[in-house]
């Protein structure tokens, strides 16, 4: 139906530009939810969010309200948050513990953690001779078609067909490998706090910004300069002559000037995933880092240790819903709410077995950059809103992605930006290529 309303969707995407309606048309948004977010692998959460049997977390996949729940046997299930009886939402809280089973607040139907019907009040007398009861799968809570877990990170797909999670992730799984490998115990653990921030713009505008290497020194100049001034002030006063690393994370927005960003590189993969290599892979030589290095070398050996800490990643974008900063152990999950509203859920992790000081680095970034009082994202969100406003107008029909077009290097389907083309708009071109493929249906 919707397809007929939106004829020739393919014409909306050209290799170097995209029609504005792709960002602003509510019908296209509905179709995106059907064909992308309710089909592909979407991040639900980390297994350590629900450590005990009965623990659950609600999560929105596309337009579908879901529950990620831990069963008594330790298995994680993803269910539609809905009672099959009269459609009542099963869990009204954002997170909690369901106890030994789910119990609907309306008529007390109960369900196992895997969604199977457990009991109905007076089931025999009430339902004998009807088609309703334990043998009818329609009387159980519906499950996500597929659930897979990669190194503790749980994904679900609401479609029974399509690539496996590992096939889908491809090279982008380095986001999780990089995070987990940096932990002496090879695992990460969630810090149980989720910052949730709503952007007043289409979900794709956020994703396109994540690997946009041209924007930081423009958008974030005010914070970069302010942090740099204070950083110098602290350094002048301090005996050791250095401000905490967190100041460096902020001042880099100003000290890494616009021309230097071309030195970075983006790698662009099938399904729209992209990696920005770059400066977060810094290796300071302070005592905290050296203490951590020692633990890591003892655990992994010198050779493997070097491999692990030399993974050079700033950002990994797992299209269409996850932005991961693995060297700082944080991620932002993208939940489109409507064509012009997008919720981001922001989490960070502890490296199991790493010293407290290493965690605190990640924490500083989480608080300063990713909290609702962010010193950085405030200006991004302002730009996103302005983008959405501009695209809603008749002032032009296209969004263009032409920077360094024609200079990208295609290596067997992986598009690498050429040397000194780090600000290439290749990641946006790559995301829209995947979008068009999904939307063809």
């Amino acid at each position, binding site marked *: 139906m919707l397809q007929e309303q939106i004829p020739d969707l393919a014409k909306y995407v050209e290799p170097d530009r995209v029609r504005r309606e792709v960002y602003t048309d509510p019908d296209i948004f509905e179709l995106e939810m059907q064909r992308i977010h309710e089909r592909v692998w979407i991040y639900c959460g980390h297994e350590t969010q629900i450590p005990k049997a009965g623990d659950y977390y609600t999560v929105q996949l596309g337009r579908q309200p879901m529950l990620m729940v831990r069963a008594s046997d330790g298995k994680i299930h993803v269910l539609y948050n809905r009672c099959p009886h009269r459609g009542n939402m099963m869990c009204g809280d954002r997170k909690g513990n369901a106890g030994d089973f789910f119990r609907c607040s309306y008529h007390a139907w109960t369900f196992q953690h895997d969604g199977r019907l457990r009991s109905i009040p007076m089931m025999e007398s009430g339902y004998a001779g009807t088609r309703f009861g334990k043998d009818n799968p329609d009387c159980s809570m519906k499950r996500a078609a597929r659930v897979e877990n990669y190194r503790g990170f749980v994904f679900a797909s609401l479609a029974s067909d399509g690539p496996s999670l590992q096939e889908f992730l491809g090279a982008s799984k380095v986001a999780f490998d990089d995070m987990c490998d940096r932990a002496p115990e090879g695992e990460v653990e969630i810090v149980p706090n989720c910052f949730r921030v709503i952007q*007043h713009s289409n979900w794709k505008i956020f994703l396109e910004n994540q690997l946009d290497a041209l924007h930081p020194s423009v958008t974030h100049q005010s914070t970069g*300069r*302010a*942090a740099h001034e204070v950083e110098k002030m602290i350094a002048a006063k301090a005996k050791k002559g250095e401000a905490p690393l967190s100041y460096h994370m902020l001042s880099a927005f100003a000290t890494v000037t616009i021309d230097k960003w071309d030195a970075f590189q983006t790698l662009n993969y099938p399904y729209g995933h992209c990696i920005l290599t770059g400066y977060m892979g810094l290796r300071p030589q302070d005592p905290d880092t050296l203490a951590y290095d020692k633990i890591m070398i003892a655990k992994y050996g010198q050779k493997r240790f070097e491999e692990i800490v030399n993974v050079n990643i700033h950002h990994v974008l797992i299209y269409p819903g996850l932005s991961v900063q693995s060297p700082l152990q944080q991620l932002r999950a993208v939940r489109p709410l409507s064509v012009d509203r997008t919720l981001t859920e922001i989490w960070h992790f502890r490296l199991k077995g790493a010293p407290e000081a290493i965690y*605190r680095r990640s*924490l500083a970034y989480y*608080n300063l950059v990713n909290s609702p*009082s962010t010193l950085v994202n405030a*200006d991004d*969100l302002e730009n996103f809103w302005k983008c959405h406003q501009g695209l809603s107008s008749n002032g032009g029909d296209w969004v263009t992605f032409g920077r360094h077009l024609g200079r990208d290097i295609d290596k067997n389907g992986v598009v690498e930006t050429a040397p000194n083309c780090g600000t290439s708009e290749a990641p946006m071109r790559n995301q829209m290529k995947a979008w068009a493929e999904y939307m063809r249906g």
Partner: protein
Amino acid sequence: MAKVKKSAVAAKAGSGKGNGRDVQYDVEQFLYRQAELLDSKQWQPWIDLFADDGVYWMPPEPSYKTWDGQPAIFAEDKNLMTVRMKRVLHPDAWSQRPLWETNHVVSNVVVEKVLPNGDLHVRSRFHMMELRRDDVRHFAGAYRHELQKTSNGYRIKLQRVDMTNAQAAYDYVLQVWV
């Protein structure tokens, strides 16, 4: 805040040099001044209300006991406050360009504790209305101030801000301190 402690002011009133009413009056004037400085965007005088080692803290939920080493919406010493101030004053702080105003009301001021040296623990309630472009938002919650008595009046050692809406999703972000 989860638990409300019984007021110590009645017991302590009159036991110090001044009487309890003077303390109450001074504290209220101090809190009103702090609110006024925020609403009039006098950032440096606002920062100057803090002791040199003072901290402004907004926990993500009421159960948190310390700002140190945990997620925080704000956990800022004077250096970080200075970064924030310099940032919002920078001409290219894009999110600061549009019309943006706040209005704080502070009330329910209770002096919880008067220490022998004159330092105070004070709790109060606030309501902040914010205007940004054409949008109005409301934030409300509890302040808890640990105040140091100095020859120049009170200085803030720790200001804890428990937002009633701390755990709700933030529709857009917070620009400066609440």
